[in-house]
Each structure stands twice: as structure tokens, then as C-alpha cells.
């Protein structure tokens, strides 16, 4: 036999084997597990090590703190005293412990659990992509080839190195999409699938996977509406009804995470400004080019090898939906670089205002491209196997296209797996921290750059970073001998009887009514057995009467209890629906629909019961400036330097005052801008501050929140709003004239400046007002 014949025989045999594997679920999963193992091998081989990247410290810490709560303290992971002076662990958006993968962390520790999570989630993603591609019309062979394109794509290679394990939540995207598609076809089991996948995605944390997955689901519904609107009105309505039931059940099942997260973000909204964008060449390099250090190349790698199959997929009429998804994702990924910006429009929606990185829409684009490729392979495969095509030139062309497109994807598996090893090698790893001798818990000044070292020492790190402004008291200290104290000198004593994250027991003896302060942040979830829990500038305190008290403090936030109850009821509904789906797979009658609606509404009972309880204050104190004064005031302070500049959006800059009108070089001063807003103000306004010395480098102090705590649109109208900006005047500023220009801009809508209507007493230049001018001594 000639070598060409040998090759053809080998290719044909491989194809038949692949088809056999694809249709045999255990073998298919074994193949997927092997691919995931190859990709995750470098992570698994270094699973004992600590990732020293800054974000990895923080994100791993949440997992460690949750494990510690469960295994060491035998408590639910509700409160994390080890970070930022204490924070709501269950309500932290980036924590990922409410997911089945937390079992890895529980049994094997955070570091090994992280590697195992990556391995397991890749298998989940591979099988999910396979099933989604099948549902989108790919043959088993086509879907088999499509699976690794998405599930092993660049983001899953990049994220472990950065500690962004939450991005593996995207591996659930095909499952969620599949659930919605089948729910639209009125399948009962699809409701279960949608609910479980969505709740898992939410529980897995991160601020991108769940919102982007929700958009994809909305897209699936829109596509369903467009394709069914004309021919099957009844099927359209009932399909949407079943999908809505799936969505409602998903929300209910995820309530144990959603409710606490919503509370956290209501207490401390995450504000994101800027107008990020990506040029087309940058996006192409991110998506098609292999990884290259110090560049963005390959961050969302699928590779050029996908192109032939994807182009074949585009040739199918039924691929229009996916083609539209590709276009929309690419448009979103371009951010503000393309006008009009779809990303800017998306940021106008609730829950999407906080998206910062448009390029992350290349992840769903990866799923669309992989599915298109699967469909392309399937088209050629089906055509080549059709009797009428078996002969002559057409058959040769079809077979050639099929072979080239398939081989290209098979070849692509190499770089797809290899990039995982490349990124894993880039990591900065250290031996894990050694647990110290048992010692009482203390807050330390700490360092978020080395956070994972503090919890094993039983130390909390006050040094704090998060993507949202964690409510943190300025009164926290990292040098106290005792973590609890009586605030009023000589009023009594306090002794710690027992300590754990969610429960602190104290013996207090007071000769007069006094306040006990705990060196942790206040939160509305703290309860005390005696006295009243209060916030003193955000510090946790308890006002107590005179006498001897056995004081018990417990962290029991209503959002956790209520969320858990709602999720439990929803879980029971999910189990019931799952069992029922075996006997009656489809929701086919009106009675079925009514029963389904009633079932899905069941979790509302605990929700309404909990929500009807007494309201909890989100913040007991007014927002304060960095120098401790209320941000909202009735009028200007004495000595304020009036400006009275009027801006187009109904905002007035009343005054601009330096705390020291004659500052020295190498000193700190405060610049106070006093604003006043009208009842109607444009949302998403930001304040820009240009600090321009007569020579040398200009600085800026652009910000969104007044005094770092209050958004202009959330501030009351017709009040003076103090915006205090600290300013360090460097040594080399001496003798130079410093001018500080101030103005307003639209932080999301293209970044345009707000027009200055009337400069008042100040000089105006390019829609900015000269607030102060000084020459440092």
C-alpha cells in the first residue's frame, strides 16, 4: 500500500474512532478528562504551592477563610474577621466557596483545591460545550471537536496564574445556554438544568461570569422569539413561560448568595468610570495569536486554526443566530473604541454599570466561534456522507474541506493545551505559609499583598483591597493588646471569654453605662445578647448599661438566613421537578403550566416572610469626609472661597478652598470642593481634577464619589456637598505656580466633559474651572 493510502486509512480510522468515542458518554468523558488533565497538569503538579500574585492572595484568602470557618470553628462562612477589619464573607462578590468545588478546598486545602477546581471545571466545560454544540445542530463528531476550543481557551489558561479562579464560572456558560434552549422547548428537566447551572455560576463568584451568562440567556430567548414569532405563537408563549420559570427558580436557588451580595453592593456600591476600549488588531491578537509575555496576546486564545471550520459553519442558514452572537460579542469587546459603543449602552443597565473590561466579551465569543466551528465540521461531514455527494469533484471538495477543517481543529488542541503550561510556568510560586502556634486573634496592620500569610498566624490584615469600597472603619488599629475595650476611660473592664469569626463572648463589668468597642467593622448583621449594637465611625460597638454582663455578639445577617431559606425551598422544588421530569418530560398542558408556576412561586413564601421583618439600616451614619465631617451640609463653612461656577447638568461648584492657603513643599493639604446639585442630575457624573504645576509633571485626581464615599446622583439636592481631596505637595514643588482645574465629566457615556455655563468668580478653560492657584513655600 502506498503511503498516501496508509495516511487515508489512518485518517479514516481516526474519524471512525472519534465518532465512536463521541457517541459513547463514558468514553467521551474519559477523553475530555484526559484533555483537561493535560491542560491542568502543570497546576496539579504544583498544587502544594502558594500563588504570590496580589489578586491570588485575596481571592484564595476568601476560600481559606471559608474553609477555616467550617473546619476549625464549625460555623457557616458568614463573617471574615481576617480581612479589612472584618467583612461579610458570604456577601463578597468575588468569593467562590458556595459551589460544589468547595469540597476540594474542604478536603485538600485551598492550594490543592484550586488546581483540582480548574481540572474539574474544564471537564464540566468540555462536556457542556459538546452538549450545547449538539443542541445547536452539530454532529457528535463536530461537537467533539468544538468542545476543547471553548473549554480550554485562553482565559482558562490565563486565570489560574492570576488567581482568578472565578473565571472558571464561564465553563458553566454552555450548560446555562443549553438549559435555556431546552426550557424554551418546554422540557421540564431543562428548568432544573438552568436553575442549577445559574446558581452554581453565581455561587462560584466573580463579577463577570454570571452577568455575561445572563446576557447570553437573553440572547437565546431573543433568537427563539425571532425564529418562532411568525409560525408558532402558542409554542412561543409557552416556551418563554417555561424559560421564565427556569430563570425564577435559578434566582431562588442562588438566593443564598444573591441576597447577601445585593446587600453588600447596596451598602457599598462599586463605581466604575473610564471609557475602556480595544482596537480590532488588539482583539485579533488576544483571540487568535498565541500567548506572548508582556503583551495581551493570547489572553482569550482560540487560534487561527478555528477559522476554516467556523467559516464553513457560517455558510449554514441556521447559523445566523450564532453569527449575530459573534458580531455582538466582538462589538461589545471593542468597548468605547467603536462608536456607537454597545458596551457603553450596556453599562447603562442596572448590574452592568460596574463592568470594566470589555475584552472579556471575547469569552462568550469563544463559545459562539467554537459552536460555529462544530457546525461547520458537521455540515461538511453530513454532506460528505450523503449519497448524492458520493462521487466526482463535489465529493472531493467536500471531503477536502471536511478533512482540512477537522485537522485544523485537531492541530489546534496542541497550542490550546500548551498555553496552559506556558501560563502556569509564568506564575510566581512560594512554599505555603506555615501555621504558627495557637495564639489569640489580633488585627494587624497587615498587607493585602501578602494576605495569605496572615490568617495562619491568627492575624487579620487591615490593609485592604477589593473591587468595591469595603465599609471599613478608620478607627481600626493594628497594634492593640486586646481586641475589645471599654471606650470610656475608667468605666469598667472587658475580658474575652471566647472568640470565633461569627461569635464573640465577653465578660463586661461596668460601673456606669458605657460602650464596649470591638476592633472590627460594624455590620447590620451583628446582634448582641445585651445592650445595643452601634457603629462608631464604622467600628463595631455595643452600648451597655451599668453592671456585670455576659455579652454575646453574634453575626446573623438576615440576608444570609433569608437567602438560605429561599434556596432550601428552591432546592426542594428542583428535586421535585427533576423526579417529575422522568415521568413527564415536557410541560405540555395548561395545567402543567399552572402547577409549574405555583411550584416556582413557592420560594417566594420565605422571601416575603423574611423581607416583611423589621428593616435593617444599610448605614447608620452619614457619609463622612476624610477629615471626619459630614459630606452633606446645609451651607458653606466660614472661610470657604466662593466660586459659584454653574455646569450644564444642574450642578454648581459653590466654593473651592485649600485647608492651608499657603502650603509648604513636602506637606499634605486638603482641597475642599463644595458642590450643590439640582433635583435632576445626570447619573454617572464624575469629577475631574487637573493639578498643573508651572513646570514638571501634571497630576490628576479624577474621581466619581464625593469625598470617596457618595455618588453625586445619590446625594440630596440643594445641599452643600463637601468633596475633600487630599493633596501631597512634593519637595520639588517649591517656587512653582500650581493651578488646580476642576470640572465634571460623564464617566460612562463616552467620557465627555459637562459644559460650564457660567464660570462665576473663576477662570474657565475648555469646560474646566480654575479652582485654586498657589505657590508652595
Amino acid at each position: 500500500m502506498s503511503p498516501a493510502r496508509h495516511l487515508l486509512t489512518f485518517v479514516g480510522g481516526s474519524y471512525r474512532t472519534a465518532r465512536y468515542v463521541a457517541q459513547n458518554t463514558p468514553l467521551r468523558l474519559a477523553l475530555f478528562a484526559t484533555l483537561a488533565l493535560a491542560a491542568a497538569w502543570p497546576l496539579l503538579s504544583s498544587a502544594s504551592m502558594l500563588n504570590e500574585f496580589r489578586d491570588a492572595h485575596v481571592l484564595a484568602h476568601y476560600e481559606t477563610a471559608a474553609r477555616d470557618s467550617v473546619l476549625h470553628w464549625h460555623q457557616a462562612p458568614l463573617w471574615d474577621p481576617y480581612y479589612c477589619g472584618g467583612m461579610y464573607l458570604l456577601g463578597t462578590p468575588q468569593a467562590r466557596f458556595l459551589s460544589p468545588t468547595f469540597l476540594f478546598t474542604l478536603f485538600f486545602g485551598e492550594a490543592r483545591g484550586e488546581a483540582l477546581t480548574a481540572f474539574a471545571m474544564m471537564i464540566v466545560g468540555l462536556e457542556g460545550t459538546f452538549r450545547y454544540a449538539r443542541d445547536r445542530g452539530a454532529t457528535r463528531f463536530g461537537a467533539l471537536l468544538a468542545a476543547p476550543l471553548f473549554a480550554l481557551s485562553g482565559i482558562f489558561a490565563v486565570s489560574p496564574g492570576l488567581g482568578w479562579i472565578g473565571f472558571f464560572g464561564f465553563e458553566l456558560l454552555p450548560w446555562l445556554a443549553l438549559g435555556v434552549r431546552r426550557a424554551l422547548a418546554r422540557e421540564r428537566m431543562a428548568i432544573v438544568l438552568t436553575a442549577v447551572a445559574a446558581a452554581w455560576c453565581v455561587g462560584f463568584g466573580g463579577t463577570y461570569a454570571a452577568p455575561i451568562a445572563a446576557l447570553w440567556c437573553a440572547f437565546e430567548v431573543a433568537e427563539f422569539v425571532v425564529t418562532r414569532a411568525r409560525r408558532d405563537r402558542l409554542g412561543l408563549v409557552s416556551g418563554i413561560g417555561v424559560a421564565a420559570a427556569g430563570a425564577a427558580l435559578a434566582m431562588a436557588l442562588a438566593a443564598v448568595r444573591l441576597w447577601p451580595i445585593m446587600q453588600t453592593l447596596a451598602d457599598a456600591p462599586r463605581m466604575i468610570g473610564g471609557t475602556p476600549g480595544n482596537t480590532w488588531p488588539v482583539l485579533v491578537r488576544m483571540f487568535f495569536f498565541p500567548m506572548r509575555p508582556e503583551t495581551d496576546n493570547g489572553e482569550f486564545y482560540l487560534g487561527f486554526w478555528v477559522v476554516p471550520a467556523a467559516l464553513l459553519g457560517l455558510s449554514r442558514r441556521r447559523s445566523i443566530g450564532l453569527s449575530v452572537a459573534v458580531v455582538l460579542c466582538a462589538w461589545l469587546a471593542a468597548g468605547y473604541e467603536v462608536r456607537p459603543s454597545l458596551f457603553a449602552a450596556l453599562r447603562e443597565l442596572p448590574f452592568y454599570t460596574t463592568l470594566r473590561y470589555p475584552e472579556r466579551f471575547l469569552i462568550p465569543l469563544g463559545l459562539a466561534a467554537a459552536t460555529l466551528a462544530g457546525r461547520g465540521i458537521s455540515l461538511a461531514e453530513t454532506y460528505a456522507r450523503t449519497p448524492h455527494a458520493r462521487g466526482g469533484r463535489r465529493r472531493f471538495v467536500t471531503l477536502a474541506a471536511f478533512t482540512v477543517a477537522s485537522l485544523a481543529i485537531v492541530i489546534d488542541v496542541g497550542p490550546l493545551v500548551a498555553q496552559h503550561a506556558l501560563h502556569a510556568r509564568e506564575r510566581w510560586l512560594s512554599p505555603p505559609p506555615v501555621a504558627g502556634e495557637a495564639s489569640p486573634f489580633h488585627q494587624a496592620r497587615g498587607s493585602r499583598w501578602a494576605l495569605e500569610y496572615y490568617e495562619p498566624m491568627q492575624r487579620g490584615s487591615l490593609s485592604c483591597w477589593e473591587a468595591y469600597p469595603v465599609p471599613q472603619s478608620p478607627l481600626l488599629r493594628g497594634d492593640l493588646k486586646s481586641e475589645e475595650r471599654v471606650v470610656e476611660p475608667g468605666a469598667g473592664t472587658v475580658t474575652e471569654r471566647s472568640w470565633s469569626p461569627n461569635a464573640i463572648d465577653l465578660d463586661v463589668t461596668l460601673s456606669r453605662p458605657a460602650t464596649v468597642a470591638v476592633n472590627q467593622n460594624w455590620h447590620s448583621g451583628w446582634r448582641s445578647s445585651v445592650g445595643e449594637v452601634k457603629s462608631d465611625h464604622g467600628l463595631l460597638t455595643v452600648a451597655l448599661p451599668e453592671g456585670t454582663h455576659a455579652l454575646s455578639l453574634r453575626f446573623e445577617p438576615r440576608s444570609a438566613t433569608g437567602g438560605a431559606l429561599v434556596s432550601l425551598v428552591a432546592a426542594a422544588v428542583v428535586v421535585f421537578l427533576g423526579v417529575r421530569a422522568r415521568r413527564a418530560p415536557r410541560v405540555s398542558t395548561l395545567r402543567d403550566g399552572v402547577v409549574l408556576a405555583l411550584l416556582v412561586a413557592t420560594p417566594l413564601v420565605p422571601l416575603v416572610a423574611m423581607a416583611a421583618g423589621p428593616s435593617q439600616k444599610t448605614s447608620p451614619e452619614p457619609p463622612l469626609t476624610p477629615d471626619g465631617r459630614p459630606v452633606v451640609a446645609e451651607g458653606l463653612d466660614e472661610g470657604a472661597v466662593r466660586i459659584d461656577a454653574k455646569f450644564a447638568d444642574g450642578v454648581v461648584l459653590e466654593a473651592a478652598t485649600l485647608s492651608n492657603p499657603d502650603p509648604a513643599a513636602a506637606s499634605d493639604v486638603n482641597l475642599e470642593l463644595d458642590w450643590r446639585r439640582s433635583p435632576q442630575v445626570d447619573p454617572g457624573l464624575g469629577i475631574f481634577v487637573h493639578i498643573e504645576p508651572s513646570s514638571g509633571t501634571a497630576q490628576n485626581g479624577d474621581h466619581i464619589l464625593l469625598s470617596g464615599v457618595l455618588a453625586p446622583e445619590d446625594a440630596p439636592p440643594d445641599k452643600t456637598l463637601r468633596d475633600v481631596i487630599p493633596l501631597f505637595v512634593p519637595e520639588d514643588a517649591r517656587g512653582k505656580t500650581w493651578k488646580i482645574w476642576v470640572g465634571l465629566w460623564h464617566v460612562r457615556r463616552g467620557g465627555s466633559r459637562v459644559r460650564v455655563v457660567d464660570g462665576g468668580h473663576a477662570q474657565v478653560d475648555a469646560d474646566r474651572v480654575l479652582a485654586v492657584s498657589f505657590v508652595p513655600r
Partner: protein
Amino acid sequence: MNTAWVPFAGVCALGLGRALTASVPPQPPAADDAQRREAFRYVASDEAAERREAAKTFPTDLWSRDDDFHQREAAKARDWARTHHVRFGDALSAVDQGLRERWPSGSPTPLVATVPPCRPRAIY
């Protein structure tokens, strides 16, 4: 168990086994008390200067200044631990203990035991 699932279970077991057998490299020895005091002094003596540098980098943002300082401080502690062949965690622990027990630091200004509240930059 159905034997059809053996290959899948085998691959998963291999992954689990690899993660569980990944070895921990030998740890440097623990620092003694004298080393801990030396580590504290090494890290804390430059605090004022490090904070000044951080203020130059972030002149209008208190949280960013403090965060920048903590990065510098962690780098110094790591540097000291590496050159003295002791655990990095011990150097961090020494900084905490020195601050709490008021060890002599050599810093011209008092060490700061508080942090400004977390205010992540909204605009990069």
C-alpha cells in the same frame, strides 16, 4: 460500577493523585527572637521615607498611597527573609509583633497603626 466508566474514573483519579502528591519544598527555618527584631527594624526604619514615596505616586488618594506603601513594605520584608534564609511569614509576623509591642524601629516618625478605608480607584 459499570466498567464503561473505568477510564473516566481512572483519569480523574490520576488528576486527584497528582494534586495530592505534589510535594512541598523544604521551608526555611523559623526566625529566632533576635532575627525577628532585626527584621522589624529593617522593615520599619524606612517607613516614613516609603510613605513619602507612595504619596508622590498617589498625591490625591489616601487609600492608594497606603496600598502602595504596603506593597513596598511587603517587598522589603520578603527581601529580608530571602537574604537571611528565614520564612517570609516570620518577617511579616515580626512587623506585627514589633508594632504591637513598640519595639525600637529606627523610624524618625511614629509608625502608623491604622489604615485609610478601602477606596479602590474607579478610574484607571
